């Protein structure tokens, strides 16, 4: 392409005021660069804050998970619960499995069915009275403690309570 020749900086500011022109040039460069940096920085700050919008975990809600009468002491019972969960602008109807464990008296707790190793769903092995994870052989006891295998932590506890009479509520 036949671009016109580029005059060099010295050629552009001829005459005795060359020193002054160079001084002015430096001031203008500083002005342009700092304003561009300001604009870029400001936009980046706004857009960054926008993109990194902090995720607000939803408050747990008490969800009905069946009746105490349906439970057998010391045998975990799986319950699939439908919960409504806010996911950004979307209200998701999620299903989550929890195990209810009742000691036959007043104590009741609930365990998440999600294996703490890689997130597969554990099952209750009635014969062995153990939770087993089908993926990598993690084994937990009825309290959710790790018995063997790769899981690093016990199964997550889910808040649970008996509602007045006989209803069981868990907080999800």
């Amino acid at each position, binding site marked *: *392409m036949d*671009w*016109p*020749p*580029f*005059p060099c*900086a010295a*050629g*552009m500011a*001829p005459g005795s005021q060359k020193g002054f022109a160079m001084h002015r*040039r430096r001031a*203008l*460069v500083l*002005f*342009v660069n700092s*304003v*561009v940096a*300001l*604009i870029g920085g*400001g*936009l980046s700050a*706004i*857009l960054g*804050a*926008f*993109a990194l*919008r902090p995720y607000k975990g939803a*408050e747990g*809600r008490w969800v009905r998970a069946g009746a105490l009468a349906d439970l057998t002491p010391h045998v975990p019972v799986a319950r699939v619960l439908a919960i*409504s969960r806010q996911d*950004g*602008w*979307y*209200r998701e*109807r999620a299903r989550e499995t929890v195990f209810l464990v009742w000691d036959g008296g007043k104590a009741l707790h609930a365990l998440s069915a999600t294996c703490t190793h890689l997130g597969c769903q554990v099952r209750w092995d009635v014969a062995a009275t153990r939770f087993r994870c089908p993926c990598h052989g993690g084994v937990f006891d009825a309290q959710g403690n790790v018995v063997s295998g790769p899981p690093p932590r016990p199964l997550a506890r889910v808040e649970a309570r008996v509602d007045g009479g006989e209803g069981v509520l868990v907080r999800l």
Partner: protein
Amino acid sequence: MKRAFDWLQSRTGFRGARHALLDEPLPPGTGWFFTLGSVLLALLAVQLLTGAFLTLYYAPTPDHAYDSVRFIIGTVPGRLVRGLHHYGASFLVVALVLHMVRVVAFGSYKAPREATWLSGLALFGLVLAFSLTGYLLPWDQRAYWATVVTINIARLTPLGGDVVAGLLQGGAAIGALTLTRWYSFHVIFLPAGLVALIVLHLVLMRRHGISGPVRSHAGDATAFYPWQAARDTAVIAVVLVALCVFAWNGPPPLEGPADPSDSTYIPRPEWYFLGLFQLLKYFPGRWEVVGAMVVPGVVVALLVLLPWLDRGPSRDPRRRPLVVGAFAVGFAAVVGLTALGWRDRPQTAAAAQTWTLREIGGRRMSQASGCAKCHSPDGIADPLEAAPSTRGPEWLAGHVVDPEMIAPGLREPPAPAAEREVAAIVAYVRKLSRQAYPGFAAETETAATIYARHCIGCHVIDGEGGKDGPELSHIGAKRDLAYFTRLIADPEAVNPDAEMPGFRSRLSDADLKAIAAYLESRK
């Protein structure tokens, strides 16, 4: 540091690129008028950036678009980013027009810069296409109805109007297929074309150099950087600060969710289409195509041909009275039409006046029906007045009758317990989706509830209700409180031929007094 740059220079030659990009020689006397192109570039960059970031959260489906936009503007950064994008479009149109005025006034379109002028016109068209397609995306009432009008205008295209409209609409009606289509145009096809055209425009601008001032000045050429760049930067800074002020002070409008069944909504275009909108009003009926296609077509054709219509060597506006005069007249016409369109815009009634009695009455009924059991801040659903419903009337009616049913339409709801209550609650919730509850006096709410439950079957108030009995909109001018109280309690005692049932047993004394007082207030 210097060694690192030297290494980079040896591998990439970036200093040459910087030299080629920034050290463009400019004719002496190039001044502030020539900053508009850079302002446009900066504004386009802001649009591209904010637009790209908006797609992080936006979902282009009718079920979710509105909710996702509401979600975006739910935080300060989101409001700012959408504000910059929204007002940036208006700033762009203004800057484009000013740039064009400068080019015409300085005769910069003349040989050898005809191709630069044409690429600039194409860019103008692209920007308008951007604003049209972007307008639909929030999927609110404004967006929906403006798009209905746009597609119907496209249908006026002589020969193949239906094909063009079908291409824009995607499906049988404006809906999911239209939204994804316009989204795709807005974020993929148009930006690709825009970037290509900008590159072309800039390459052409550099190829011929900028036209410079009308009369040549004495002196040497100066480099773009930093001499002209400083002017550009100063103007850009002022413009962007103004844009931030807009984005900060006036969050862009988001009306109720799109409601194709709403026959009361009056569509309004964005302000820079108001002139065109106004023009259509002067060509009613079968002449509409003249306003929609012929006049704008002639204007575009004249602009395209301008470099060949004005071939004289002089660029001085004083020596081109015909072109400058004609352009000024055209420009004044556009401004005048826009001003007329602005003046003619429908006045929005005060919020409270648009609420019908049934809608007001629905509020009390929704409270009495226990909607708040789930629709509360800590319930499983959003409070009714916090989140506008995006559902249609059939869904809402099904849900009100049987709240467990979260997918009405899949099965029949049980027989409605109280049809009028359901209708009133649905009316209330649908009104809420368009307008926040303005608040009414407790007596008005009581009266509205009674009217929506007992009177609406036979009596019209403000155009709503059955016609078996007399209209009550202005009944207060004829009768007084005592009369209403006696009549409603026991109609036959007042008029032996009355067909209206008595309400003494069905209304409490307080309710009776409230509805009688309300009717008296209807002068």
